[in-house]
């Protein structure tokens, strides 16, 4: 039995729009074992992206606790949480979110700028990550010179370059054609299978969810077993 790497316990989250409180998540409890490939599914507004954001430490719950890789991230201050994210989380977005003024190499290097690695070491790490995603030949290309699938692969290289504990992916294939989506899912399967990365992925796409080991459904802010 693998250790639990993500423990979400009794977490609720609501947003305020003007004076109206909009509940998004209600009393969510979820455990993710180390090495898991978990898909979170649900209709729009069900709270799956909010749950992903909470696990990734980019949003805070109203109550409950979230323990990731042995750290109760709810208790961390802003600066400590940023440092924690840089060490433990690799984030993959639906729309890639690469810096348009930076090359593939420079985009992947970004998280490493926060480490104490030398320039040479950073170069080695970046080249390794780009090799893993199969883009060693596009190293000096800018995002606008890449296809959507290639951009997403650069984003994945950026997510794995620091060797994070967990990879969170928010609709990673949502903006891609079927062929590119398959390539990305294959890559994620490889990251999970070959590199033992724990992955939590939000998706609308049942075919994408099929690639995960486990699928959890959310509806109206609650997990459905």
């Amino acid at each position, binding site marked *: 039995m693998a250790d639990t790497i993500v423990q979400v316990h009794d977490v609720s989250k609501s947003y305020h729009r003007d004076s109206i409180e909009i509940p998004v998540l209600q009393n969510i409890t979820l455990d993710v074992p180390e090495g898991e490939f978990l898909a979170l599914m649900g209709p729009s507004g069900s709270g799956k992206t909010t749950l992903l*954001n909470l696990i990734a430490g980019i949003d805070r719950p109203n109550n409950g606790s979230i323990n990731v890789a042995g750290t109760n991230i709810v208790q961390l201050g802003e600066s400590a949480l*940023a*440092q924690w994210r*840089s060490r433990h989380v690799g984030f993959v977005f639906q729309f890639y*979110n690469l810096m348009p003024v930076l090359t593939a190499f420079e985009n992947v290097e970004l*998280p490493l700028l*926060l480490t104490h690695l030398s320039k040479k070491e950073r170069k080695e790490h970046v080249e390794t990550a780009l090799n893993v995603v199969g883009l060693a030949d596009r190293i000096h290309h800018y995002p606008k010179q890449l296809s959507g699938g290639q951009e997403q692969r650069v984003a994945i290289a*950026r997510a794995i370059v620091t060797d994070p504990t967990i990879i969170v992916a928010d609709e990673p294939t949502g903006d891609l054609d079927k062929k590119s989506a398959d390539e990305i899912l294959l890559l994620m399967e490889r990251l999970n299978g070959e590199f033992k990365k724990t992955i939590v992925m939000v998706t609308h796409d049942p075919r994408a969810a099929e690639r995960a080991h486990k699928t959890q459904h959310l509806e109206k802010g609650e997990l459905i077993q």
Partner: protein
Amino acid sequence: MKFFKLIAKNLLRHKLRTSLTMLGLAVAILAFGLLRTVVTAWYAGVDASASNRLISRDAVSFIFPLPYSYRDQIAKVPGVSEVSFATWFQGTYVDNRPEHFFPRMAVDAETIFDLYPEFLLPHDQLEAFKRERNSCVIGEKIAKEFNFKIGDIITIQGDIFPGTWQFVIRGIYKPKDKTVDPTQMFFHWTYLDEKLKQDSPFRAGNVGWYIIRIDNPEDAPAVSEAVDRMFENSPAKTKTETEKAFQQSFVSLSSAIITSLEIVSYVIIGIILLVLANTIIMSARERIREYAVLKTLGFTSKHIFILVAGEALFISIIGGAIGVAFTFPVVAGFGAAFPTFFPVFNIANSTLALAAVFSIIIGAVASIFPAIRSANIKIVDGLRQIG
């Protein structure tokens, strides 16, 4: 330094916008430097004043002369080491156009260069000047401007002292440093006085003002008071003050213009600050989503602040440096275009320091609001922004 490349690449994102902002800043700093130099030039006489020289003039107005006989009495005042004198001659060289104007003064040839060691005149030229009654000494800038050489004759048409006056150039002085006026002309007061004795005897025997060298600058108030007290009951009362105060009184006549120039120079800085702030605000607003992504990767609020502020500082420092660099040739050209209007027209170190400091302040102040705003953006809010 790790973020320098990111700052530089962000600056190149909108090359035209960045270039125009830098150019605007360069022009503003150049205009600031030029205006400050004009103001400094106005104060050149004040700045060049010696602390051990006093000026004694008529108490009512500078335009009234003082008797030549005062000289020996002033020399006897305790603390006075030497006395010289001068008379404003004015006159017209060639015509009344400003470019033909330069200060012309009748002086005591024996002592004037002792009192003003900042006018560097070779010994043989000084001796030749002293020997020849109708000779004169001119500044090197005047010599260069009008192509005068030693031995040439300058003809001046008198106005305050009517007649046609001819002077033989026997010396060309060099200024000791950049603060000294190199555009003056000095000739023998005795030459003037002799002509006055013939043509207007009632005007003879007078000088414009006395220049008094004192042993100890700290004695200036006491010596001034002693001199003025000596002539308290005379028909021509004196007003004695430090050379600096004397020069300051001329500058104060133009105080409204100088103050206006100073205000305009600071207004220019204020305007360009707003322009840069607008540019940085626009840039930061366009990149809110990117800053949110950087925060997701682990960048802290401090890092984001550095990125935004660094961009503004980069623009302001480069723009300021270009402005300062171009100030030198523009000031040189301005000085060459008006060589006698501003005899001392140099960029002061204080002007350069102010330009540099303002360049940095502009960048820092312009970036504060957008940098804080970007640094404090919540990741989830930033990610919702349309990129």
